[in-house]
């Protein structure tokens, strides 16, 4: 039975509410009173959430095989017939259509739900900022774009949302546009994203010419048999046995799409924009750069899982990139002192986790982690925002400390989030992270090792953050100290709700090994079935319970080790950094790592030794930024200089060549046009002689012929 219902038939309202308010804000927002702005903007997102919840519930009413609802509003892009690789012509159409299936259900709920909370929070956080209406206009525009992204029924419409969120990210990062660093960061984000987008576009095009369609699936359409969808085409190819032919192309498609995902989801090497993006207001970081937008890449890969499952090589690439990003970013997070930067690197790291999951075939686990991460990372950012708010804008954790008692609600919720991200049972992060690590272990041991150590690192740096911020003595300036206060309810209530979600959010994926049935994975199963059922990438793992529990214990102990280490360093201070330095000079990377973190913390021997963090920082600034971003800038300048030169000398030169020639020519003309009678007469004579000579010469041949 196909799902029906009022909310479903008005599915398009979900993105429309935020769009309407966004338009209202951006065009006439200046004249709307602040309360009105708050009401309209938060309310519209709330309405979206209600609609989404309604639609999801209506979808859930259907049985699990039929949980697909697709709605085409109108044909959007109709550029005529397209020639596929094989030479067939197909009418190319990109719909403006929405798709609600279990996968988008999860996303739409996360986006509207978390988005709503963050909007509420923003009302408090942004209360005293200028451009209030503008902020909410952008935020709602973002909501619109993000919802379009997750609800799109084809790749191109998804790309619309994809670009839209990028744009809003640009606008919101640069919200404090008076600050150059802010607008720089926004620009950087947009441009780096564009590099990924180019890959995405090419991926779309390749999909289009290979498969003849860019619609994800035709399920749920009135004539689902005749209408084409990627899934259906692949299935047909499998049935006709031609799948092998297109497999290499599918790999290329998968890789191109992944380039897009790397840009949006801040994976190596395109992650560099995300730390800078922290220039934006904190709610923005929470919403866009933690909970929703940056996970769009993950969502997209899962959405395209039918293709990825047929391209194992691409999957491996995804896994490796994800794993490397995870540990790389985590290691950098260790040394950061800006509270938001730590969280930013953490986000990158967690996104790496998600990609690791996708790469090893655990799509459901990836989405699961995406969801839980949305909860606790949003919470972390909002908490950080609350801290910053209470600290009158101070972001440096070295100038904090001892806040535990002063802002208790923030502190407690922050602790919960930290525990969640560290993967402590039974917080949400535990379930999702464990799922990933378990699958990675199955797939490839080394990936598991990386993930495992990352887990430890995560625990370490998060607790480092926690300890430095909330415990110990206050290191704040006096006048800041005086103003420390708990945030208003508009900010703390969302914190509390998110904290609750960070605890219970993981329980819907309670694994079998612990007596649950992993309902989350079952829920997503129809979407992730894949074309070839036996690839098994999405089958629910049936490990031996013992092994699974063993792995859980291992990772828990790793997290514990991280926490302990953090405690020893930053709370009890039983381990002095210098001591470590003398004991293990440049032996083992992990140790070195620790060693340098100490040094940074003390800020005493930074210049004497090469701390990995600094190294990575330098790498970031010089190699990646330098070669990647600045290098591109340099290249642009260089080539445009060359171009200008070319323009000026070669092309204009050619043009001016005429003038030069004229000048050159004018000399003999002047020489001949002397104004002297005799030379004129002489020239006439020369002309006469030349013309006669022409015939004389001509006559030679004639004479010879006569003889």
């Amino acid at each position, binding site marked *: 039975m196909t799902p029906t219902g009022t909310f479903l038939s008005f599915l398009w309202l979900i993105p429309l509410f935020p769009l309407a308010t966004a338009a209202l804000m*951006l*065009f006439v927002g*200046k004249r709307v009173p602040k309360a009105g702005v708050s009401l309209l903007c938060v309310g519209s997102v709330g309405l979206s959430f209600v609609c989404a919840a309604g639609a999801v519930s209506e979808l859930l009413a259907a049985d699990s095989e039929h949980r697909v609802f697709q709605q085409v509003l*109108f*044909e*959007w*892009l*109709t*550029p*005529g*017939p*397209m*020639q596929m690789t094989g*030479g*067939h*012509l197909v009418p*190319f159409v990109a719909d*403006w259509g929405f798709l609600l299936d279990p996968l988008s259900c999860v996303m739409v709920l996360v986006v509207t739900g978390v988005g709503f909370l963050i909007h509420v929070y923003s009302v408090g956080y942004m209360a005293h900022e200028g451009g209030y209406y503008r902020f909410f206009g952008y935020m709602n525009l973002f909501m619109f774009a993000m919802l379009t992204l997750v609800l799109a029924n084809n790749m*191109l419409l998804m*790309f*619309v949302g*994809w*670009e*839209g969120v990028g*744009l809003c990210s*640009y*606008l919101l990062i*640069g919200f404090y*546009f*008076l*600050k*150059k660093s802010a*607008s*720089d960061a926004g*620009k950087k984000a*947009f*441009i780096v994203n*564009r*590099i990924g*987008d*180019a890959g995405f*576009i*090419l991926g779309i*095009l*390749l999909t*289009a*010419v290979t498969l003849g369609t860019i619609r994800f699936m035709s399920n749920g359409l009135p004539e689902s048999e005749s209408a084409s969808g990627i899934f259906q085409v692949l299935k047909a190819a499998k049935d006709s046995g031609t799948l092998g032919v297109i497999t290499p192309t599918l790999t290329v498609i998968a890789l191109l799409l992944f380039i897009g995902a790397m840009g949006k989801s801040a994976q190596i090497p395109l992650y560099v924009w995300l730390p800078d993006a922290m220039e934006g207001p904190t709610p923005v970081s929470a919403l866009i750069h933690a909970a929703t937008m940056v996970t769009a890449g993950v969502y997209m890969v899962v959405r395209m899982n039918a293709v990825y499952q047929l391209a194992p090589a691409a999957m491996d690439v995804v896994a490796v990139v994800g794993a490397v990003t995870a540990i790389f970013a985590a290691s950098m997070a260790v040394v950061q002192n800006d509270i938001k930067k730590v969280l930013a690197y953490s986000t990158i790291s967690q996104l790496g986790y998600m990609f690791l999951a996708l790469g090893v075939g655990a799509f459901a686990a990836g989405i699961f982690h995406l969801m839980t991460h949305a909860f606790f990372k949003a919470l972390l950012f909002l908490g950080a925002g609350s801290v910053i708010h209470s600290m009158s804008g101070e972001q440096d954790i070295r100038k904090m400390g001892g806040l535990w008692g002063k802002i208790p609600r923030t502190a407690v919720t922050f602790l919960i989030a930290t525990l969640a991200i560290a993967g402590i049972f039974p917080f949400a992060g535990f379930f999702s992270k464990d799922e990933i690590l378990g699958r990675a272990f199955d797939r490839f041991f080394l990936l598991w090792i990386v993930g495992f150590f990352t887990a430890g690192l995560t625990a370490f740096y998060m607790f480092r953050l926690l300890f430095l911020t909330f415990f110990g003595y206050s290191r704040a300036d006096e006048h800041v100290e005086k103003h420390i206060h708990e945030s208003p309810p508009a900010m703390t209530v969302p914190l509390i709700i998110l904290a609750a979600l960070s605890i219970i959010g993981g329980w819907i994926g309670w694994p079998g090994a612990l007596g649950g049935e992993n309902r989350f994975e079952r829920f997503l199963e129809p979407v992730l079935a894949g074309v070839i059922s036996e690839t098994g990438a999405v089958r629910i793992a049936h490990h031996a319970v013992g092994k699974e529990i063993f792995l859980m214990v291992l990772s828990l102990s790793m997290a514990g080790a991280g926490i302990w280490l953090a405690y020893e360093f930053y709370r009890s201070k039983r381990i002095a950094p210098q001591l470590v330095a003398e004991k293990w000079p440049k032996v083992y990377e992990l140790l070195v790592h620790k060693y340098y973190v100490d040094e940074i913390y003390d800020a005493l021997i930074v210049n004497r030794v090469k701390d990995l963090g600094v190294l990575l920082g330098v790498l970031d600034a010089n190699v990646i930024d330098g070669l990647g971003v600045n290098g591109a800038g340099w290249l*642009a*300048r260089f*080539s*445009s*200089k060359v*171009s*200008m030169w*070319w*323009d000026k000398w*070669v*092309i*204009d030169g050619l*043009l001016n060549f005429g003038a030069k020639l004229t000048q050159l020519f004018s000399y003999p003309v002047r020489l001949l046009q002397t104004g002297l009678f005799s030379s004129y007469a002489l020239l006439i004579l020369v002309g006469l002689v030349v013309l006669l000579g022409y015939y004389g010469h001509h006559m030679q041949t004639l004479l010879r012929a006569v003889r």
Partner: protein
Amino acid sequence: MDFFAHHILSVVLFTPLVGALILLFVPREQDSVPRLVGNVFGVLGFLVSLPLVHWWHSDWGGFTFEENADWIPSIGARYHLGIDGISLLLVMLTTFLGMIAIFSSWSAIKLRQKEYYILLLLLQVGMIGVFVSLDFFLFYVFWEVMLVPMYFLIGVWGSDRRLYAAIKFFLYTLAGSVVMLLAILALYFYAPAAADGSRTFDVPTLLAAVKDFPDSLRVWLFWGFFFAFAIKVPMFPFHTWLPDAHTEAPTAGSVILAGVLLKMGTYGFIRFSLPLLPTDTVLRARIIHIVIVLSLIGIIYGALVCLMQKDMKRLIAYSSVSHLGFCTLGIFALNPNGLSGSVLQQINHGISTGALFLIVGVLYERRHTRLISEFGGLATPMPNFAAIYLIISLSSLGMPLLNGFIGEFTILQGAFQVSKAWAAWGSLGVVLGAAYLLWLYQRVMFGPVTNPINEKLPDLNAREYATLIPLVILAFWIGIYPKPFFAFIEKPLERIVHQVNPGFYGAEHAKLPPLEMQPAVVETK
């Protein structure tokens, strides 16, 4: 009414001329009257072109609204007008942008107003004429006629280096067009004469005759036309007139120049150059390759040079090189996607770049400088301006939901079907497009107000809204619902693809549906 319906194209074509003639008799001393008359005829020109859209049927593939009268019988030149979907869109773009451009000059032009409006209206006649002519001779006449008013618009009302820019513009274009004249004459001569020995300049007839030409002749003819159009487009490396002309022209001139004049090149490519491509596949591939490589160089080159510009108008001018590179890329992909994307992108470029020039005009009118370094932080004093500017920038850089994306994507789609590498290089242009436009935006709008003069700049006034808002609306319209626009060009392009790339449709559709000449005139409802 009947007369109007039968001569709709003539009416559209000559309405601005009537305006210009009336202006001739307006006394010079009256300052506001020429302005008023100019605007009235700008609007009127647009209004009389609206019935074209109204009467249009989307299944028309051939030329319609035809008018065909004797002009110079002894040489076979006729007054033959007619449009198909492609020219219809361009005509509409011309009348629309013309109206906007005229209106945008309301307060910008204080000197010699009467002449200014006369020239703008004459320019309008020339441009519409190029798009509606179905007679090569007539086409050429309009093509050249148009240069003169543009020359004066740049030369009289331009900025500092106006004389240089104006003559450069004129000479460049002329150099191309005289070669085209030869090609036209060759086409005229080599096409078989009628039974009574008379020859014709009729475009459909001559283009149909081309199919019997030997390849060697076709190649020569192709290059003959190519130079004229390539200079007009302008393709790399024939583009250097463009930055100068755009930069020095007054705002309305730049709008028209970028919005319409450049489209004549691409229009020419579609209408005249494509049918001349040789049939021999190797030869054909070689030619297409050259053109495509030039387009790609243009795309990337234009974008890179943009990054270095200090002058806003110059930057936008170079961005035109890049955008028009996309158009030619799409055209020479020779498939419906590429071509329709290209036509749409021409419209888009007219809207976006036209609007960008208007935006620079807004700043120029306030500050009398276009140097980027003079500005900064304008978002504070001019928030609404900032919003509109942002939308236009995004439209230009191909943000989805705005017009630019539709064109660029469709072009890339068309190119991709032919060669993946082309599309890949093209997409690099998309990336760079974001870079230079956003950087420009950042430098002008963001940050603190660095220059104290800028603190007091007034935001947009009603007139400026009136010029910009229609463009913004169009940008959104095309971005969100481009289907009606595609509908105009689908059938004509199908014919063209059939003609120039018969392999495209494969065996199943190898036969081109016979062209039924559309009814010359539509019954008025």
